[in-house]
């Protein structure tokens, strides 16, 4: 079953023990915000698992990747057999990140000519990360580590609450800024932070893998299943069966009336599809 968010966090050396700990509790936190989540932690952060969850053809991850690991200009890393291993690279970033937002707490992925800008150029909606190596506190019990963890989480929380990537970036920057007097790590990381994006004012709900405009399509089939309320589908030529938005009786009826009319007259329609359901109809 597809999820909204994929977390990738290996645990293969001293540094990634710390970055892995940043992700402790994040899955539950996001689920409490209404986002479904898979957590590829430690030995599960393999190239095979990451590919399975992110490959574009499967749409197993719908909105956001949270990557807490080693990074370099050429790759973001997971692990295999206990060894740090590249999982998102310049070679596969198009397939693995197109239509998604990526948030990394990792070194260097978002430098010029690195994997982050490569991904955005090839269809990733946004990549927030760092342009050079950055730092983490290595004692998860320390107050400084807990402060850093809350700062790292603030971006994800803001996105989960529906903020745009720009607004979420501002929250993250404010968190670093507010704590820069506690340790030089905060001001250093802040100075190396960068957001790359393909458009302005996106949210993870407005721009993701499952929100698609279908323009000028014909309706060539209708379906309803009596025993289940609001179970009404239309077949879009060349696209497939899509369910009418099932929140309200009236709206199901209204949308159906519009699409039936279009079908009757052979007129093309334009619809906004969200996770295989028709959210908006122009007929």
């Amino acid at each position: 079953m597809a999820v909204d968010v994929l977390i990738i966090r290996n645990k293969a050396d001293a540094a990634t023990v710390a970055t892995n700990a940043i992700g402790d509790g994040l899955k539950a936190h996001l689920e409490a915000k209404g986002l479904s989540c898979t957590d590829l932690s430690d030995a599960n952060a393999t190239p095979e698992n990451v590919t399975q969850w992110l490959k574009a053809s499967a749409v197993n991850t719908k909105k956001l990747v949270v990557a807490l690991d080693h990074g370099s200009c050429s790759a973001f890393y997971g692990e295999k057999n206990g060894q740090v291993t590249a999982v998102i690279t310049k070679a596969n970033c198009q397939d693995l990140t197109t239509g998604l937002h990526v948030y990394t707490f990792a070194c260097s992925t978002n430098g010029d000519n690195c994997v982050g800008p490569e991904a955005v150029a090839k269809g990733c909606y946004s990549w927030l990360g760092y342009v050079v190596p950055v730092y983490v506190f290595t004692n998860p019990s320390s107050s400084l580590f807990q402060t850093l963890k809350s700062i790292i989480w603030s971006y994800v929380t803001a996105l989960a609450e529906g903020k745009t990537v720009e607004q979420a970036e501002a929250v993250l920057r404010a968190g670093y800024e507010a704590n820069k007097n506690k340790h030089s790590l905060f001001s250093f990381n802040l100075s190396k932070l960068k957001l790359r994006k393909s458009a302005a004012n996106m949210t993870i709900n407005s721009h993701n893998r499952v929100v698609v405009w279908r323009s000028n399509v014909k309706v060539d089939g209708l379906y309803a299943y009596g025993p289940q309320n609001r179970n009404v589908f239309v077949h879009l030529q060349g696209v497939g069966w899509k369910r009418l938005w099932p929140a309200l009786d009236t709206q199901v009826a209204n949308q159906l009336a519009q699409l039936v009319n279009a079908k009757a007259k052979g007129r093309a329609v334009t619809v906004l599809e969200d996770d295989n359901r028709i959210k908006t109809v122009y007929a």
Partner: protein
Amino acid sequence: MPWHNGKKISGLYSYGPQNRNSFIHVEGMGWRLLWTDHDCQSNAMTMMASYARAENRTVNLFEESGKIKTIYVW
């Protein structure tokens, strides 16, 4: 045989005082009640059947206990 494929709808019936009372007349089969569990579904199936009758479209129907449970309209 619960599926009836490639059928035509030759009539429509409804009785105002009773909720979800909406029937279709299927050529070669007779009158069948549209499934009655939900307002929305009764409405949707009636709309589809009405369209099929108006435009002489072909339908596939799944019948259970004398009622139409599933409808495809082409």
